[in-house]
């Protein structure tokens, strides 16, 4: 391999712009033809150098060479060395280590390698201006420089500091001969030599005798690098060459100058070349340098061999006779000299062990033969077959079972809607479809879990897309859904409605509206009936008190009161005719002047006299109320006494005897309830402490009890003992009104939260019954004095008459039967009925509404 390469390179040489002489090149060419010997080469180099020095005076060239040359070379080196030093007087520090002995030893084996090296050497030879790749220690360099300065032009370059060399070079002469040092690290390793280096120093002085000196030096292996692989003429390094495709040059030489691409020549040139050049067919182009290389005979042979798929080495004999070392034939005489060992005739113990193990496993059934396995498989299949599990249909065998098993409910059976051809009414119309789509995010709210579809024939029915999902859902339900036994009610809802006596059997009670009292201009807040049942009096937001005759329905009298009338109460004492009217902060005692003339006049006489008493009125009371005799206009209007209160009076109520009068001022705090005695014209404050916002008060009809309803509770006070007897818990938010049964043991409490509470005082402090008859706040409740009736009116305009029978027998609970709902009033500002009252004697019912009418039901 080495030879052709060398040849190629040498061919290129002339074209490369060099400072080297052409003569020199020629010499080289000649050499190349001569032979491959190292020695010769070296000598060539020497001659080269010599020629160069001829031209450029006093120039020292140093060419490196390897130690791995032939023995002769080394010999020659050693021979020459003293000459060099002698002649040159160089002070170069060059280490010599002639490893001749070693080389001698390994000579043969190394041959090929040597050849490689020779190539590189040749290259170095060829390139005249190539740098000295003399790698040595730094000390070496220094010494070099020292050497240069004093005297000569001998120079050796160290590869490791090329830069310094570079800088030196321009300063120096151009005509220095560079000695290439080619080193082979591999080789060095092979030889076991650490560093081996040879350098050839040519001394140009000796012209007649071109002395070729080879200097071998030991250098660090790392300094050698792989420099031998590099093409010394082109410094671009190991890069893809196509990078230079676009440039006119292909790289740079050691001096940093561009190496221009060789001219390609046109087609004609090529053709001529082809025609003329007998070696054209074996010329190839070296990509690195762009030069043409003519392949040698050996190369061509190699290539042809490879092309023919022969072994490249022509020397290799493929057809050497086959030596059969191990044959199937039993030879008569043993190969070995000694007889078979005894052991080989005995059965192997370890194998026997293994076999016995297998046999045992087979016996025990741990491993099975294939036949057995087949059998077993067959058997397994048969085992899967079923047998009679239940001996009888309904006789359960005794065994452990699930505790209190709850069987899963069966799935619902499909209705008409699921049919593939349902009746047309089951198909969704647009509205239903829209609703279906609307519930897409909450599919469980849908009425059906599928869209009914109609197919004209069975053939067209596709598979149901959610079928597997539904089955899976069922599976989940079966094993994940908690189960419990639930009683399903199969009762008729009507059976929940309590069985009450029919209203027909509970007559008489008011059923029809028979009269409407019109005359008020604003809503009527309160009204009251005369004890005999001949007149009623009413008052409201129009600030007048109107007296009506029941029989005719006429307004007999109108008394302006000068304030919103919140409560009116006719004195129950039949001996006097007097109405208590709560108009704003005043309570007016009005003699209506209707009915028996004697009584009215007597009342007037009675009230003209102001009873004198020397009791000093308490300051607390005096500031709360002042009695005042009416005069002038008021007297003419029928107003007899005026009680001026310090707060708005919400309610007035008479004691059954008609002497005491209780007034309620919800804002009065601890003075909100006031009891006034008419005969003595005196007032008392029964409570010293406020227990809450007082809504209304009531006197017990028989006993000296006072019922005080605060917002949530009703308190019963004994007026004689001056203590609280009971506290009734209403369990509601806000009490509006209350009424007491004439027997005195039952109270009816109306609340704003739509309830009516019936308290049985003998029973408990909690309501005996809570009636939710109304849909809105209850405003008025009333008991009938004689009949077992009670009524309630609410904001929803509804007036409900109920039967409320209280038995004398203590063991029997009151019977409450709602009888009738009367709904004739109109709403006004969300108010319906504001007050309810029974006729004192007849089973008639009055209701006062926000629509400024009073209605009579009979």
């Amino acid at each position, binding site marked *: 391999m080495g030879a052709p390469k060398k040849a190629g390179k040498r061919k290129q040489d002339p074209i490369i712009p060099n400072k080297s002489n052409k003569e020199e090149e020629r010499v080289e060419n000649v050499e190349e033809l001569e032979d491959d010997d190292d020695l010769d080469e070296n000598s060539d180099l020497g001659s080269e150098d010599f020629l160069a020095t001829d031209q450029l005076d006093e120039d020292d060239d140093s060419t490196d060479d390897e130690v791995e040359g032939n023995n002769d070379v080394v010999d020659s080196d050693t021979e020459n060395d003293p000459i060099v030093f002698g002649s040159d007087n160089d002070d170069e520090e060059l280490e010599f280590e002639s490893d001749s002995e070693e080389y001698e030893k390994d000579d043969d084996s190394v041959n090929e390698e040597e050849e490689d090296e020779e190539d590189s050497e040749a290259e170095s030879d060829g390139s005249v201006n190539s740098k000295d790749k003399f790698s040595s220690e730094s000390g070496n360099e220094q010494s070099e420089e020292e050497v240069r300065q004093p005297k000569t032009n001998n120079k050796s370059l160290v590869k490791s500091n090329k830069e310094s060399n570079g800088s030196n070079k321009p300063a120096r002469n151009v005509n220095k001969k560079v000695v290439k040092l080619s080193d082979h690290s591999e080789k060095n390793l092979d030889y076991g030599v650490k560093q081996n280096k040879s350098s050839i120093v040519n001394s140009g002085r000796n012209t007649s005798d071109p002395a070729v000196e080879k200097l071998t030096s030991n250098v660090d292996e790392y300094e050698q690098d792989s420099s031998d692989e590099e093409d010394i003429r082109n410094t671009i390094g190991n890069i893809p060459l196509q990078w230079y495709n676009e440039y006119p040059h292909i790289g740079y030489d050691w001096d940093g100058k561009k190496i221009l691409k060789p001219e390609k020549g046109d087609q004609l040139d090529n053709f001529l070349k082809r025609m003329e050049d007998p070696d054209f067919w074996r010329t190839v182009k070296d990509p690195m340098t762009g030069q043409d290389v003519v392949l040698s005979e050996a190369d061509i042979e190699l290539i042809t061999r490879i092309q023919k798929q022969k072994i490249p080495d022509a020397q290799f004999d493929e057809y050497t006779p086959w030596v059969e070392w191990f044959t199937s034939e039993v030879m008569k005489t043993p190969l070995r000299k000694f007889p078979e060992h005894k052991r080989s005739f005995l059965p192997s113990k370890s194998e026997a062990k293994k076999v016995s193990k297998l046999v045992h496993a087979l016996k025990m059934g741990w491993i099975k033969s294939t036949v057995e396995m087949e059998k077993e498989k067959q058997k397994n299949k048969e085992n899967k077959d079923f047998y009679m599990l*239940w001996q009888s*249909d309904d006789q359960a065998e005794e065994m452990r079972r699930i505790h209190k098993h709850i069987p899963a409910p069966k799935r619902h059976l*499909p209705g*008409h809607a699921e049919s593939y051809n*349902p009746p047309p009414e*089951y198909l969704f119309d647009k509205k239903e479809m829209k609703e279906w789509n609307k519930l897409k995010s909450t599919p469980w709210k849908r009425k059906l879990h599928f869209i009914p579809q109609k197919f004209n024939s069975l053939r067209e029915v596709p598979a149901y897309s959610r079928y597997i999902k539904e089955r899976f859902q*069922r599976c989940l339900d079966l094993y994940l859904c908690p189960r419990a036994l639930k009683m399903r009610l199969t009762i008729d809802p009507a059976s929940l*409605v309590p069985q009450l006596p029919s209203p027909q059997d509970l007559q008489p009670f008011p059923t029809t509206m028979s009269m409407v009292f019109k005359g008020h201009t604003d809503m009527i807040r309160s009204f009251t009936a005369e004890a005999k049942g001949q007149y009623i009096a009413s008052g409201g937001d129009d600030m007048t008190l109107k007296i009506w005759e029941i029989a005719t329905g006429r307004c007999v009298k109108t008394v302006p009161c000068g304030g919103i009338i919140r409560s009116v109460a006719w004195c129950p004492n039949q001996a006097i005719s007097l109405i208590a009217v709560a108009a704003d902060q005043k309570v007016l005692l009005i003699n209506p002047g209707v009915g028996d003339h004697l009584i009215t006049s007597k009342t007037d006489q009675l009230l003209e006299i102001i009873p004198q008493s020397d009791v000093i009125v308490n300051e607390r009371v005096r500031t709360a109320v002042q009695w005042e005799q009416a005069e002038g206009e008021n007297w003419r209007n029928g107003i007899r006494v005026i009680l001026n209160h310090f707060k708005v009076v919400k309610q007035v109520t008479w004691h059954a005897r008609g002497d005491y009068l209780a007034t309620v001022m919800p804002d009065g705090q601890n003075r909100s309830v006031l009891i006034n005695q008419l005969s003595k014209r005196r007032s008392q404050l029964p409570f010293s402490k406020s227990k809450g916002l007082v809504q209304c008060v009531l006197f017990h009809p028989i006993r000296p009890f006072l019922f005080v309803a605060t917002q949530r509770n009703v308190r019963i006070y004994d007026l004689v003992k001056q203590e609280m007897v009971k506290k009734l818990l209403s369990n509601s938010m806000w009490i509006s009104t209350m009424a007491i049964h004439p027997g005195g043991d039952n109270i009816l409490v109306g609340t704003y939260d739509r309830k009516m509470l019936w308290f049985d005082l003998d029973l408990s402090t909690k309501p005996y019954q809570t009636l939710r008859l109304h849909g809105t706040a209850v405003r008025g409740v009333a008991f009938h004095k004689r009949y077992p009736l009670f009524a309630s009116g609410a904001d929803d305009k509804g007036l409900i008459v109920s039967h409320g029978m209280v038995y004398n027998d203590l063991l029997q609970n009151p019977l409450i039967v709602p009888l*009738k709902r009367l709904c004739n009033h109109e709403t006004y500002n969300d108010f319906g009925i504001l007050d309810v009252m029974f006729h004192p004697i007849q089973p008639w019912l009055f209701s006062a509404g926000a629509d400024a009418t009073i209605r009579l039901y009979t």
Partner: protein
Amino acid sequence: MVVIGKKKYQSGEGAQFLSRRSALKKLQLSLKDFRKLCILKGIYPREPRNRKRAQHGDTSIKTLYHKKDIQFLMHEPIIWKFREFKIFNRKVGRAKAMKEFGALRRYLNNHPQLKLDHIVKERYPTFIDALRDLDDCLTLCFLFSTFPSIAHVPREHSLLCRRLTVEFLHAVIAAKALRKVFVSIKGFYYQAEIKGQTITWIVPHHFSFEPQSKNEVDFKVMSTFVEFYVVMLGFVNFKLYHDLNMFYPPKFNSPGSTDTKLVDEEVYVSERIAALNSPLSSVNNATPAPEEELDTDQFPTEADPSQLELSRIEVEKVKKLKTLFKGLKFFVNREVPREPLVFVLRCFGGEVSWDKMLFVGSTFDESNESITHQIVDRPSMTKQYISRYYIQPQWVFDSVNARQLLPVENYLMGSVLPPHLSPFTDMLRDQTYIPPEQRALLDPEFKVKTAKDDSEESEAEEEGDDQPEIEQAETILEGESAEATENDISEEEPEITVTKTNDSESEQERLKKKKGMVVQQGQLTRENPWEKNRIEKQEYRLREKMIKKKHRNLYKSMMQGKEDRAKEIWLLRKKRRIHDSTEKEKRKQMRKEGKIKNTA
């Protein structure tokens, strides 16, 4: 005084329940195994009476198992099998990782197997119990029999399902146990009555399998269910066959047993149906004796004689139903789904065949003159035999549900089918909507408006008479009154009109009299029934308000439900009315156009 040693939740409801987590801990199983165990053993969570107490004061909703259920699970031998599985999996995994293929094969060859026989017996103490629970089992097995081999559903599973379901169908055919059929959009619903238990199952339409996304359907869970159901169905089949005096692994005379071979799906299906067409061999080779006459002697066990009478009628009807198609020969055209039809027809004694060239197992040819019905599902046919009816498949199902052979006119080839009604609607419940078609079936007097009637009707109409419409309205009203509880209002309406007319008449008379005579005659005050009704209603409403607080919500919800149902019925009726009227309009239009054409 503090009772020493007594702590909260150590007795009573607090001690009866275990959360799933604690159950897992107690059983020392993974969740996966626990689930499987629960499915196989039929253990389910239970709803405690008081959740807070059962959860030791925690109010969040947990899955609670009864303590005894978990203890019951603890004694289950298949738990050990699960552990064996675990070890087996590890061994196999290791062998695979180490590439010890010999060992791997050995492991795989004797993998542990679950045996579930004892669980079937444990879960279903008697055969009747098993039958009662057969619904889900059959439905799932029928579904799995259509599955291809997918992950978690091995091929053997679906093959076994196929085999068992076909066996079951044979048992139903042999026992003549089928009672009702319903073709829904989801599939075919069948209801059979075996030993007094009604068993309902669904067979999906063709091509029901489609791949499901993993978070929607977990085939693993389903296949665990099937694993158990297969065993259960096998035992039930065995018992059924035994009771019917037949060999159990039935020998179908199909060419080759297809159980093990992976045959073409289509071939398999056709063979499966073919199998349905052939009678099975019974143990005593003689022909099955005709069913002994039911002893109709009645013992007065039930107090109600009418009930007894009803049940007797029912029995007779069923007896008739069993031989509904006896003596009829059916030929199923190829476009008709054969499996359901063959099954149904064979169940009721019919003879079935199909095109010999298409599928195996046909018994007679299309050209056979003795065929009475040919079932077709196409609008027309070129070659028709005059000796048979060409009917659509719905006729078969409707006839079965009606328990009589319906007239074929409505079901002939190419005609528009009457609606297919569900046989499962509960007649006994009040407040159900009964479509007119169903009512026509129930009482023969009721006439459903069909196209034919309509044509007559319309002729009458053309004379300028609206009579038919009114008639129809009346019939609807009658129907309503026939229903036990209906909207009160709708009932009232006719009465109101009557009274009003009466009133007006009397008024006129009175006026006449007034003119004629001076002395007024005393008049009878007649109670206005409407008014009376109103008053009653009002009274009822007041009484309603007196319902105890305890019952108020219940009552409200019940009434709400009632109202909703009434509304639904009203809506359906309205839709039907609208539909009918539009249909009529259309037909009228059509006829008019036809007339015009004729004249032209």
